[in-house]
């Protein structure tokens, strides 16, 4: 089998030798130019004067462009046409690009970009959720509200009621490779773009619009990214368009890459949220009615805020059956960088909301948090027929037919020794006056599919050459997740050849058109299937050739071990390819796949937005210092559902990496803006992603090896985003440790920096 096997990432030998090529590594033609943006130094206002004379005179500067110099569309938004590449005179956030410097080198462009003298009429910016609510500054007319049952009545009549609020910060992607693009002008006005992007097709569209040419005049290629995490879904548009404009103007190749500080200031981040909750529940902890009021800061432009906020609502239930629920979502417009996609895409924020509620209920009842969760779980897959559980539906009316967390939980609690460790930790805490340990348990059930239904499509192009070597191409992009490797395994499996026969090639809008972003964890589900369909088409043609040659029926053939075998004869795959060529049979095919059975009305909040759910469990043990709030993750156990994994090693890699990134979001990673709207944490010196020693000392990750009941590619499940939410268990563990300090519920906010932990300890002790 080529699939279900832990082959290394196809680029690993290149990575470790420094030979893997990223955009900034591509050799440049002679005379190539380098770009940098001049940035606004206020958060809101009007530009009254731009004196760029010093910029133009600076060493190495070839051209300086403002909005007036743009020949066609001045827009780099993914759809709403509300993000000018260069300011049209209005300033919406601190760090907004105002003008573009084209210079002989990267350093000279950066130096010149700081010489602009901009005069503004400053206005008072809207920076916080509170300020945006007060000013009713929002996207869409008002809050979006979805409901199921009658939450108000259910809460009122419940024997127990609590309410609270959790705030959670945003998150900088900190892809190690910053944003980068390169434009190579072609003849006849065409443009070739190399972009570090998750969405080559969108880059193609934005560049074409900016150049005033049809889409066919722009070819975008992406071999790999040095990390994306959602931050390269729409945020690369500005660089690619700037390069294209400058390349058109100068006739020279143009490259732009953001310096790290510029990258962190200019580009969007994860949406921060404030979630208010009110919940009624019975003595066992079963939720009878619940209401969430979600408020998120979208920044100055729409970008992807609506689907992100939708997904936060869609994950407000997480693993729990809610009969009476109302979810309200406020999408607020602020003078900050436009928040954007980030692994989980609102899902983690929604999940953290209800996980907080679960812990709060358990604390209120003095119950075990795991018990409270289990009592609220959806009904399991086996028992769940529509007749048996007519109401096993999500708040948005989708029937849950594939819930396996109940069974997983039983196994997991045993393998992670939950009960014993709970007891040991209680004893340890009783003996320790200063340090306290905590345990946090969190399940995740994550919906797989783009909620914008039409995006759930993918194309592929497969060529078999006459020597039997195979070249595959598809619309998905490689950002480190191992998509190319998985898809190559799919192709090798289908043709029954060794993976060495498969060549994986860069994503290219000229090979597969009209692609969706590689996002929503959909990469291997969609592109794997499209490639398989293309391979099957060719395989069927080859089968006819072989059957005729062997004198058997095509159905009797087996493609395996690099051969095609009939019941009595065998020939190497390469010989069959040559024979097919000589027989004038086409050895090239496209493949096209669309996810079946989806329907979704996002305004009503009703339908079946997801094909299936990926699930998993995490248990984290932490220790905190009650004097300072310092803390460490000591151990993490994870059981994750990747279906019948296409590549267990790569999937475990996603789980480990997702966990640490999720824990980082909720602990050390703190974005700080000052009262002028300036981001104060715009470099790794001040913004702290997890370092090596922040990973758990003991880190046990297992896959729940059961095939996806839905007909996905080789019955695997998507794995990109769901494990991110395992990091929530670290946050809950911190809260648990704090609870060992006093009787009150700690109401911990995220990120749980030492300072927030210390404040929560005081709340637990009722000292505040």
């Amino acid at each position, binding site marked *: 089998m080529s699939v279900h096997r832990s082959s290394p*990432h196809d*680029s*690993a*030998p*290149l*990575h*470790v*030798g*420094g*030979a*893997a090529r990223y955009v*900034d590594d591509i*050799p440049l033609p002679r005379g190539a130019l380098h770009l940098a943006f001049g940035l606004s130094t206020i958060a809101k206002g009007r530009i009254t004067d731009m004196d760029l004379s010093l910029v133009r005179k600076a060493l190495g500067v070839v051209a300086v462009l403002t909005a007036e110099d743009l020949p066609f569309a001045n827009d780099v938004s993914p759809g709403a046409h509300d993000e000018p590449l260069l300011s049209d005179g209005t300033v919406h956030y601190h760090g907004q690009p105002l003008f573009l410097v084209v210079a002989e080198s990267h350093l000279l462009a950066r130096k010149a970009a700081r010489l602009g003298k901009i005069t503004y009429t400053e206005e008072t910016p809207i920076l916080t959720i509170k300020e945006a609510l007060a000013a009713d500054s929002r996207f869409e007319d008002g809050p979006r509200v979805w409901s199921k049952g009658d939450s108000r009545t259910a809460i009122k009549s419940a024997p127990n009621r609590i309410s609270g609020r959790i705030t959670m910060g945003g998150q900088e992607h900190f*892809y*190690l*490779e*910053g944003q980068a693009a390169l434009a190579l002008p072609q003849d006849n006005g065409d443009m070739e773009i190399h972009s570090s992007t998750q969405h080559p097709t969108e880059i193609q569209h934005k560049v074409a619009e900016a150049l005033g040419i049809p889409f066919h005049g722009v070819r975008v290629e992406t071999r790999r*990214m*040095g*990390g994306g995490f959602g931050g390269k879904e729409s945020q690369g548009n500005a660089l690619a368009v700037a390069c294209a404009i400058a390349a058109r103007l100068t006739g020279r190749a143009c490259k732009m890459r953001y310096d*790290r500080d510029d990258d962190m200031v200019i580009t969007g981040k994860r949406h921060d949220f404030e979630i208010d909750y009110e919940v009624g529940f019975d003595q066992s902890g079963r939720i009878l009615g619940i209401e969430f009021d979600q408020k998120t800061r979208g920044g100055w432009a729409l970008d992807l805020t609506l689907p992100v906020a939708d997904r936060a609502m869609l994950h407000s239930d997480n693993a729990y059956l809610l009969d009476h629920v109302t979810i309200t979502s406020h999408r607020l417009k602020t003078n900050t960088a436009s928040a954007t996609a980030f692994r989980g895409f609102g899902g983690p924020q929604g999940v953290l909301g209800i996980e907080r509620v679960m812990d709060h209920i358990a604390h209120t009842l003095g119950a075990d948090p795991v018990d409270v969760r289990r009592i609220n779980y959806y009904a399991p897959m086996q028992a769940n027929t529509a007749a048996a559980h007519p109401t096993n539906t999500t708040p948005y009316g989708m029937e849950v037919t594939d819930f396996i967390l109940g069974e997983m939980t039983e196994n997991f609690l045993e393998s992670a020794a939950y009960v014993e460790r709970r007891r040991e930790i209680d004893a340890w805490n009783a003996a320790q*006056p*200063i*340090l306290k340990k905590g345990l946090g348990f969190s399940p995740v059930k994550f919906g797989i599919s783009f909620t914008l239904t039409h995006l759930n499509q993918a194309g592929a192009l497969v060529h078999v050459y006459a020597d039997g070597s195979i070249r595959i191409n598809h619309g998905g992009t490689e*950002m*480190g997740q*191992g998509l190319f490797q998985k898809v190559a395994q799919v192709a090798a499996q289908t043709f029954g050849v060794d993976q060495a026969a498969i060549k994986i090639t860069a994503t290219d809008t000229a090979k597969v058109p009209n692609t969706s972003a590689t996002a929503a964890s959909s990469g291997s589900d969609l592109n794997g299937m499209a490639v398989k369909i293309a391979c099957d088409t060719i395989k069927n043609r080859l089968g006819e050739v072989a059957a005729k040659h062997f004198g058997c029926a095509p159905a009797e053939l087996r493609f395996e071990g690099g051969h095609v075998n009939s019941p009595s004869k065998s020939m190497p795959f390469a010989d069959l390819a040559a024979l097919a060529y000589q027989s004038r049979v086409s050895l090239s095919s496209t493949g096209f796949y669309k996810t079946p059975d989806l329907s979704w009305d996002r305004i009503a909040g009703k339908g079946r937005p997801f094909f299936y759910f990926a699930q998993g469990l995490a248990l984290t*043990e932490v*220790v905190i*210092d009650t*004097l*300072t709030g*310092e*803390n*460490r993750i*000591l151990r993490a156990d994870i059981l994750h559902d990747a279906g019948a994994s296409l590549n267990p090693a790569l999937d*475990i*890699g996603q789980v*480990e*990496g*997702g966990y*640490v990134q999720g824990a980082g979001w909720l602990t050390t990673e*703190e974005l*700080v803006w000052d009262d002028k709207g300036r981001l*104060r*944490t715009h*470099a*790794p010196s001040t913004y*702290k*992603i*997890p*370092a*090596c*020693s*922040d990973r758990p*000392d003991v*880190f046990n*990750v297992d896959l729940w090896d059961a095939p996806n009941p839905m007909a996905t590619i080789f019955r695997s499940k998507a794995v990109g985003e769901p494990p991110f939410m395992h990091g929530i268990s670290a946050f809950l563990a911190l809260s648990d440790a704090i609870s060992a300090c006093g009787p009150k519920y700690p109401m911990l906010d995220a990120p749980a920096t*030492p*300072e927030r932990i210390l404040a929560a300890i005081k709340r637990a002790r009722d000292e505040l």
Partner: protein
Amino acid sequence: MDIEFLLNGETIRLTTAPTRTLLEWLREERDLKGTKEGCNEGDCGACTVVVQDESGIKALNACILFLPQLHGKAVRTVEALGSNGLHPVQTAMIEHHGSQCGFCTPGIVASLVAGHAQGRTDYDTVLAGNLCRCTGYAPIIRAAQAAEGTERPEWIEEDRQKLSTLTTPAPFAPQTSDELAAWYVDHPDAQLIAGATDVGLWVTKQLRDLPSVAFLGKCTDLQDIRDLGDHLWIGAAVTMTALRSALLESHPAYAELVRRYASEQVRNAATIGGNIANGSPIGDNPPALIAMGAQLQLRQGDARRNLALEDFFIDYGKQDRRSGEFVEAVLIPKIVPDLKCYKISKRFDQDISAVLGCFNVTVENGTVTAARIAFGGMAATPKLATHAMQAMVGETWSAETINRAKAAMDKDFRPISDMRASAGYRLGVAKSLFDRYFAERAGQAVNVLEVRA
């Protein structure tokens, strides 16, 4: 400047601007694109290279390493870390799935190869300066462990031998502290550069031009640590790495603080003198040194003067340093048995202190006979907690005395709020550190880094 060094075994002679970085030169002039720019400030490690000189083999950040600093040394980039094919670390990284996006990988590999050559297995420390956003580090550690004990590549010895064949004289760089002293009196506006871990950022981030510089790397006498009987004389150009290894046994609390100072790559370049002379209120060395009662030795021409380190820091950005005068050495007591250093930051490794408290309290027969307590991050300069110290000396060593000292802290400090912590947290935690010190001396567990699951 004319310099000569080894690049991947090849002798390179070139004329360079003094502040051109190795990273830019590798990528733009040599087309060695394997070494990556991740942050351009020495915080992410994507640009890590392996450098060998007479002091040994080490990892350094190429993004803030000026080319003249390499004179007479041998540098290896990710493209040339194996002798025949890949280094065992690289092979293990493939087999153990240690790379995902691959962008941090060259730097990770370089750090691990340097660690491998040194026989290191303290991977959390070896890799503290290498950020990876994809893997969660676990497979990288598995790879590092798998490569333990494998053979070192031949180039280590080959490069080492070849170093002696380099013939170009050093570019202008004082060879001794005497030469430096004489030159600096005549060029008081010049910038002295030792490790460039701070000055590097003036160039890569502030985009400053530095018209006149002197590299201190050849002043080997400033790299000495001398035993003066009661005191150790630590030359200003002693790197943090050399300092840590020298003080590991004698000053364990300080050595552990130094372990958490920046990262391996930065400690391999940064010097004790640089961390003092830059006058930062959040440098990690000064509070510890002040608590020890360190003396600073300043030199102007042939004239030397010593002063208590705390007196060097006058105000934010202002030090008691005269024109043409430089930090020559710092003197610390040979034994400081009661010293404890508590660094509070958002992340344990490679972070800047929100608060750093260093305690050195002598207790005899239950009575406090001396107290030196210094803080960083609490004021415009590293500073002694004078009132708190006064509240303790002569009193019994008790919780009551600790509480009085904590109360006195209100008179000592009025910290500010910034992106690292609020003023209230800083002052509150600074006080709590008195409790930690008291508890630790009573034998209680106070350090989350020492707790295991």
